[in-house]
């Protein structure tokens, strides 16, 4: 093609630098706050500083991190998955149940079951155009019902029968629990998937503008189904890891877990409206909530209910700040 002399480019924004700064704050804000909070905690609580405590924080954060990872993908497509809390518990129960058949079943059965629920979620959302909110709300109830049905209305707690699986949950390497290593590997895979593959680009495109994405040839439905399946799988994996850690499939946990995950993702700078977000931000968000929890435990006699108050306040502050940053950006 012949080169055309007339330049078209007419810049909308004049102040590119301030734009970059706002962008940086939005992306790395959670990380910055995390650093500050960790410094404060380290100064205030001698016990916080130890290598062991870091391991404690990480192992506690492992299951929520997996759930938040799946949620990040879903939210970037502009959706939401409320079923992950229930799936997490369901995964734990079936993992403990299946552990009597060995290590692999304990890991794979929850993945299969929760992945299946993810398929149902994804298909309903992608093909019937029902709101993700309501479909996954129904899945929340359904999965909880299923979990209770499998555990005699929640009264039976299956113990993990496989020693290998149990030691996977409790053992550690270099002072860091095996589950944390597994989660780290999954996160690296997730990052590559989101930022360096065509699938990852289509996740952003679907969330950024579904109509445009479909006109540009993105397989919108397949992308949507995939992210809900991923979310289900990761919730199941989180449940399995938790079962291995605790040595049993506890039936009473997991209420509100989905909302914690959403909070972590949002704090990490992912836009709930879809189309933008990073996994690095989600890690920062998860760790931030974990560190706050840990700090409250350090104080000792503070009731755990304070943690909820602080998390809630934190969430409000972060999302309000985020909204103002976005507005600021539009104005410049």
């Amino acid at each position, binding site marked *: *093609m*012949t*080169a*055309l*002399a*007339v*330049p*078209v*480019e*007419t*810049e*909308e*924004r*004049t102040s590119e630098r301030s*734009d970059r700064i706002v962008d940086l704050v939005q992306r790395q804000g959670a990380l910055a706050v995390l650093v500050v909070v960790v410094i404060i905690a380290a100064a205030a609580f001698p016990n916080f500083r130890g290598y062991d405590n870091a391991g404690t924080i990480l192992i506690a954060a492992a299951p929520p991190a997996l759930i938040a990872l799946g949620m990040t993908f879903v939210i970037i497509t502009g959706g939401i998955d409320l079923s992950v809390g229930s799936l997490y518990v369901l995964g734990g129960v079936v993992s403990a149940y299946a552990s009597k058949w060995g290590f692999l079943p304990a890991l794979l059965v929850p993945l299969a079951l929760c992945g299946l629920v993810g398929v149902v979620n994804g298909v309903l959302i992608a093909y019937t155009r029902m709101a993700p909110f309501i479909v996954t709300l129904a899945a929340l109830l359904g999965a909880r019902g299923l979990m209770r049905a499998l555990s005699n209305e929640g009264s039976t707690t299956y113990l993990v029968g496989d020693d290998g699986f149990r030691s996977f949950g409790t053992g550690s390497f270099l002072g860091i629990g095996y589950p944390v290593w597994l989660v780290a590997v999954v996160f690296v895979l997730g990052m*590559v998937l989101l930022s*360096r*593959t*065509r699938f*990852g*680009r*289509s996740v*952003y*495109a679907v*969330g*950024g*503008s579904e*109509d*445009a*994405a*479909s*006109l*540009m*040839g*993105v397989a919108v439905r397949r992308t949507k189904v995939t992210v809900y399946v991923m979310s289900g799988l990761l919730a199941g994996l989180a449940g399995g890891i938790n079962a291995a850690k605790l040595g049993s499939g506890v039936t009473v946990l997991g209420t509100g877990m989905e909302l914690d995950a959403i909070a972590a993702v949002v704090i990490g700078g992912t836009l709930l409206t879809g*189309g*933008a977000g990073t996994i690095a931000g989600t890690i920062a968000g998860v760790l931030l909530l974990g560190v706050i929890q840990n700090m409250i435990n350090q104080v000792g006699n503070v009731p755990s209910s304070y943690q909820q108050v602080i998390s809630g306040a934190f969430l409000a502050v972060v999302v309000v700040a985020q909204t103002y940053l976005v507005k600021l950006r539009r*104005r410049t």
Partner: protein
Amino acid sequence: MPILEVTDVSKVFPGVRALDGVSFALQPGEVHALVGENGAGKSTLIKLLTGVYQPDGGELRYRDEPARFATPMDAQRAGISTIYQEVNLVPLMSVAHNLFLGREPRNAFGLVDERRMIREASEILVRYGVTTDVRRPLGTMALGAQQMVALARAVMVDAKVVIMDEPTSSLEPREVETLFGVIRDLHARGIGIVYVSHRLDELYQICDAVTILRDGKVVHTGKLAELERIKLVSLMLGRDMSAVRREGFTGFAGDHTGAADAPPVLRVTGLSSRHRLHDISFAVRPGEVVGLGGLLGAGRSETIKAIGGAYPVDAGEIEVGGRTLKNPTPVRAVQAGIAVQPEDRKAEGIVAGLSIRENIALAVLPRMARWGLVSDRRIDKIVDTYMTRLRIKASGPDQRVGDLSGGNQQKVLLARLLATQPRVLLLDEPTRGIDVGAKAEVQALIDELAADGLGVVLVSSDAEELVEGADRVVVLRDGAVVGELTGTNVTTEALLETIAAAAVSSEEPHDN
């Protein structure tokens, strides 16, 4: 041998035959204009060609074989690319990612090769005159540049046919030149182009052939050079050529006898909003229709919204009937007697899910109520009045507005504005997307309202409508007033000259 051809196709929607036995043939290397009024069937035809709709009857042939495109993607894979009126890309994603979405270059591990993608994107876009950092989000670029990215993307897929739906509606004159350069290049490479535009000048500048649609039928097809301009317009409008010459193109009666010495009902002084509006001043007297002219992005809609309190203002004064409107918000503006008809009827005008009654009464509910309780009797009275006066065609006041035709929706919106008993009416493209009959009615209504003593501000991209409807035209460019046409000077030629002159003299980069 045509590269893309439809023979005798029809498309029926519930209640309307959108296309009726239409035949259309595109030759390779031909730029074929597709023209017609809104509702004539252009969009439907394009959607049939690109796999959005399936024809109810007739045949589609592509590259000499019967073809069937189940989805837009099918058509695209076969080599038919479309550039839509609104840019259909993802604003939050980077320019490079938009350009390459789904075709990203990959490295040996199957991962996206970002560096190569960015390099190639820059190289490709330079040829379209876009020299920005391709890592920036697309949404931060000007609309014209976005359009060029869309065009580059469309051509990249090894297209045999490119369909352009009003590609210049958001472009600067300079950008139009670049676009035409690209089109000539495609033409030379034997690619067939379907070009949809309302701008006659452009058609005659770039197109070889023309097909004119009216009411879902083809009324003319042939070489464009052999078709006189006035003949084209009369074919489009379905009006007698001599009548078009005599009466003009619109339903406006002519000048209004607004009292030339009466104090203005609306006075705008030094209105500024950062980046968008710069020191805009004008005044409207009662009974006068003042047009706001200019190209898309000149700041016409922003000016109107700013006066209506719906657009942030940094400086300037708005006076209604001699009283200053302080800290304008929509609520205060309505109270002061300003009524705004927004450009985008569906997004900002009607509430589609509510009834005609609720839509008309929406702005005046407090007046229809006592102690917060609504009186349906009072509402019915004004709804009746306006439905009759504006000749709103509906099964009754309880019909959902979303189920009405475009013209009737617009009338419902106007009824809502009039119910507030405004002193100033700000109309942004009042006849866009409505059928010819309703268009004439709306135009006649504007005349009538001005005669009743309202001050009217009229924005229209249709030069004829603006010139024939307005007594004076204030011309904007880049958010500033660049000229004013008065008296016998209010002609299409003068308007276009003023816009064109401003375009040449303006050195500042446009910040659309």
